[in-house]
């Protein structure tokens, strides 16, 4: 590096420096836009796909000792397209008419399931500190300096070259081949293309395979930039790709390409020209140091907020879109009164049995796990409010929970506040953040709300956590973020059992509040909004106000739960508890099991903490068989399987948004009904196609076909 460089030279160097990573961003953005345009799937699992290819390449090179070429062929040109084809064929082809949000949730589930599944099948585990190598020997240590201002590493040059080849190939495909023409047609309108005699399924399958190759290639190329191969980093990468694609307004491939390059160069420019603040402005310095990795998230958030029209880019695209039946609504029908009573009676009985067992029989480790389950269930109630009631996907609940935890840490550490008071302050701060955050993103509907919250979660992760007045800064790295247990008057909750009792009390209070909200004005308003926003506005409901309240309440609950979790572990433990990728599993669990009900949140909490030890480790079998020696040989199963299991379970969200528990119960009720009562006549004419889950009678009353409003019938109800 030269000492006294002129400004133009600095700019030139920054451009050169930013181009190779920009090219990789562009590569992954291209693949992302390709999938999005041809199948309408906003594929968050793209990062997971990139990770799997990179991991297989790494594994084949390191563990199996393969040469570069076969490892590359296997990971990028065999495995990657195979995954793409399988996803299209097994999942997304059947979801063509599902709502965009439902598809998004499916890809979130896949983001969790795919890396875990790969790790289990190949027996791959990331080894800390073993830096992945690139596809050329000595990629990181041999440099070329063509212009005398910036030295490219071999890896960077390869990335650049591959990106150029990929883009040219894609351009040629679109311009000169019949398949490319068909793909362009499918982008415009799949149904119109089918009318022209082209099987849009096949075109779409090809697009999935092709874009997956892009993902795999980008994954392998970017691997040397990470110290350790971790799925979370790759999830991060897909957010960068979304930012690049959003800069290109998500519609055109050339713009996505330009967006990726622009992002890479912009980060390099920022690194070069951002003024260096002195040490007396420590917090500014902390922001500055962490700003560069956060640039994509800031850009993404900015694009979404400043240009909300992006949310309408696709919806209007297909002139034949209205021929498809409308997708099922995000959440399911109300349950019957009988089922509610039955559920509550059962839950109470179950609760009594479990508490007896826990208080009298359980050892410390079980008490710890049960407490964790209860606290997680509390946090999950925040997802019940925002996703189950308001029908919106929030991916920053982890950040809100962390705000709760950090606030307790800060208040107790600095001002020696009472811990419980601090917990409520934390929840209030989280609620304020939630309400504040919802202001700019209110106008964004559906998936764009989810993406904006994701961008915020990553921004929080990259910048805010590092600040000394939030996450504790450097001292926290050394000393941890310690949080004591609370005391109320004579009661000291340092004892694990008494803290469990406190956690249960908090959960019950929050659950009652959530039920009151659901039955009250706010819940009913949100249900109306979820059913039809235009109709809700037409009777005077302000969508903005209702959503601010929902998001604020949700953030409050998450903050309170986060504070409780920090108290339980006596440490905030941000990376393992609240990081975006970790918190994504929360959402997956809740939507898989049931986002509508308190019961769903409770079971999700139990699954989070207890599924692995109880079921996968085989303790439940041991208990049933009354002997630890007679556990079947398949146990213990790796706890990683829960990511696979629940990740894949989240796929059914597209068809049964009410979740596994509620849907299962409904199936049972229907079976009972069929045995008890006469067959239920199907409704004769419906304004909308009826969800299979709601079409048949849920209560066994006899509904005669209501064809003509002149003769309204079917009212002999007995509730």
């Amino acid at each position, binding site marked *: 590096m030269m000492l006294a460089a002129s400004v133009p030279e600095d700019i030139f160097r920054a451009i050169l420096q930013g181009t190779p990573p920009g090219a990789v961003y562009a590569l992954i953005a291209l693949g992302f836009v390709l999938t999005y345009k041809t199948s309408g799937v906003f594929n968050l699992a793209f990062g997971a796909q990139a990770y799997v290819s990179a991991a297989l390449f790494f594994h084949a090179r390191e563990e199996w000792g393969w040469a570069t070429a076969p490892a590359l062929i296997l990971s990028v040109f065999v495995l990657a397209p195979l995954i793409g084809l399988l996803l299209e064929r097994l999942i997304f082809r059947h979801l063509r008419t599902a709502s965009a949000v439902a598809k998004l949730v499916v890809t979130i589930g896949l983001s969790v399931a795919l890396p875990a599944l790969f790790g289990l099948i190949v027996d791959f585990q990331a080894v800390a500190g073993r830096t992945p190598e690139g596809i050329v020997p000595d990629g990181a240590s041999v440099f070329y300096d063509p212009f005398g201002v910036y030295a490219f590493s071999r890896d960077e040059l390869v990335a650049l070259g591959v990106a150029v080849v990929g883009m040219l190939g894609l351009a040629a495909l679109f311009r000169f081949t019949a398949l490319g023409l068909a793909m362009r047609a499918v982008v415009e309108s799949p149904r119109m293309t089918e009318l022209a005699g082209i099987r849009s399924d096949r075109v779409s399958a090809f697009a999935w395979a092709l874009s997956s190759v892009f993902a795999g290639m980008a994954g392998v190329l970017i691997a040397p930039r990470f110290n350790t191969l971790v799925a979370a980093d790759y999830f991060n990468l897909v957010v960068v790709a979304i930012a690049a694609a959003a800069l290109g307004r998500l519609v055109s491939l050339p713009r996505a390409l330009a967006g990726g390059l622009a992002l890479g160069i912009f980060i390099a420019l920022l690194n070069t020209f951002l003024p260096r603040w002195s040490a007396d402005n420590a917090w500014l310095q902390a922001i500055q140091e962490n700003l560069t990795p956060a640039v994509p998230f800031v850009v993404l958030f900015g694009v979404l907020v400043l240009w909300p029209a992006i949310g309408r880019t696709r919806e209007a695209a297909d002139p034949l879109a209205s021929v498809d039946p409308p997708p099922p*609504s995000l*959440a*399911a*029908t*109300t349950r019957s009164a009988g089922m509610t009573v039955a559920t509550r009676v059962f839950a109470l009985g179950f609760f009594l049995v479990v508490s007896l067992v826990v208080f009298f029989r359980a050892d410390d480790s079980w008490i710890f796990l049960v407490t964790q389950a209860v606290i997680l269930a509390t946090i999950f109630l925040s997802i019940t409010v925002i996703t189950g009631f308001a029908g919106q996907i929030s991916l920053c609940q982890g950040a809100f929970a962390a705000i709760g935890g950090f606030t307790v840490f800060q208040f107790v550490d600095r001002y020696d506040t009472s811990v419980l008071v601090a917990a409520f302050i934390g929840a209030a701060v989280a609620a304020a953040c939630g309400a504040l955050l919802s202001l700019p993103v209110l106008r964004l509907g559906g998936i764009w709300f989810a993406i904006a919250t994701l961008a915020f979660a990553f921004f929080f992760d990259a910048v805010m956590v590092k600040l000394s007045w939030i996450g504790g800064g450097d001292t926290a790295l050394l000393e941890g973020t310690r949080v004591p247990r609370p005391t109320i008057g004579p009661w000291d909750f340092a004892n694990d059992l008494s803290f469990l009792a406190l956690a249960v009390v908090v959960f019950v209070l929050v659950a009652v*509040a959530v039920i*009151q*909200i659901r*039955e*009250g*004005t*706010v*819940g*009913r*308003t949100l*249900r*109306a909004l*979820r*059913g*039809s926003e*235009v*109709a*809700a*506005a*037409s*009777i*005077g*409901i*302000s*969508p903005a106000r209702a959503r601010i*309240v929902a998001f604020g*309440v949700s953030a409050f609950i998450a903050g309170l739960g986060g504070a409780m979790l920090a108290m339980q572990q006596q440490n905030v433990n941000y990376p393992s508890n609240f990081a975006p990728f970790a918190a994504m599993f929360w959402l997956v669990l809740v939507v898989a099991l049931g986002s509508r009900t308190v019961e769903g949140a409770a079971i999700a909490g139990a699954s989070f903490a207890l599924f692995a030890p109880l079921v996968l480790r085989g303790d439940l079998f041991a208990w049933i068989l009354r002997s630890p020696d007679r556990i079947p040989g398949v146990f213990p199963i790796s706890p990683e399987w829960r990511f696979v299991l629940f990740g894949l379970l989240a796929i059914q969200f597209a068809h049964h948004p009410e979740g596994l528990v509620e849907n299962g119960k409904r199936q049972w009720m229907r079976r009972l009904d069929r045995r008890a009562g006469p067959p239920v006549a199907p*409704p*004769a*004419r*419906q*304004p*909308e196609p*009826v*969800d299979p889950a*709601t*079409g048949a009678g849920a209560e066994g009353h006899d*509904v005669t076909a*209501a*064809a*003509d*409003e*002149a003769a*309204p*019938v*079917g*009212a002999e*109800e007995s*509730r």
Partner: protein
Amino acid sequence: MTDTVLEATGVTKRFAGIVALDDVSLQVDRGERVGLIGPNGAGKTTFFNCVLGVERPEDGRVLLEREDIGGLPVHARARLGIGRTFQRIELFTESTVREHLLIAERTRRGDGRLWKDLMGRGRPRAEEVARCDDVLELLGLADLAEEPIERLSLGQGRLVEVGRALMTDPKLLLLDEPSSGLDRDDTAHLARTLQEVQAAHGFAILLVEHDVELVSSFTERCYVLDFGCLIASGPTAEVMISDEVRTAYFGDVEVAS
């Protein structure tokens, strides 16, 4: 003049160079039934949206009871007394018929504070239920009050939309092609019911409609839009036989008599 409910003056709306509405002025008086007709693409829906607040016109004013509502969002206009139904039916999925009316009633009362919910005071109150049931009775929907909305026919669904709008105490009810998707009997039943309800509540109706029969029998006055311009207005019976309307609908053909 004091009895004017809706007054639109010089409403002009352009979409990327296309003039969707060109200086449209229209007036609806209290208790009146007014039609707005015109061929496809004439700008009826755009005008509707300008009144409702879905679109903002470039020029012109929209007055509700002589108050300028041009700057207000959709829900604020709804609270001031503009109710509507939808061409493609818009109901709240997974709710019963009565729940539709109850939430509209609660919104009208406007006391849906979060803390009241938390105190358990957010559930429907007896007087709210009574008022909803009165309207359901009036619409002939009383027997369907507990039905989930998915089980209703299209005609019943449209009546639920009317009922939901009625709960907001509208001064003006905008009906967006209420006959679409309904057969003759259903349409006649809807028109009859609407007339009865209007007699009881006394709001004004502005009807956008393709069904000439319905417009002729249902409205007292009507306006005709073509290519964004008002081409005729007056008592419905006269407008229907005017030359302008024939030209707009059937083209510029000399009728060989």
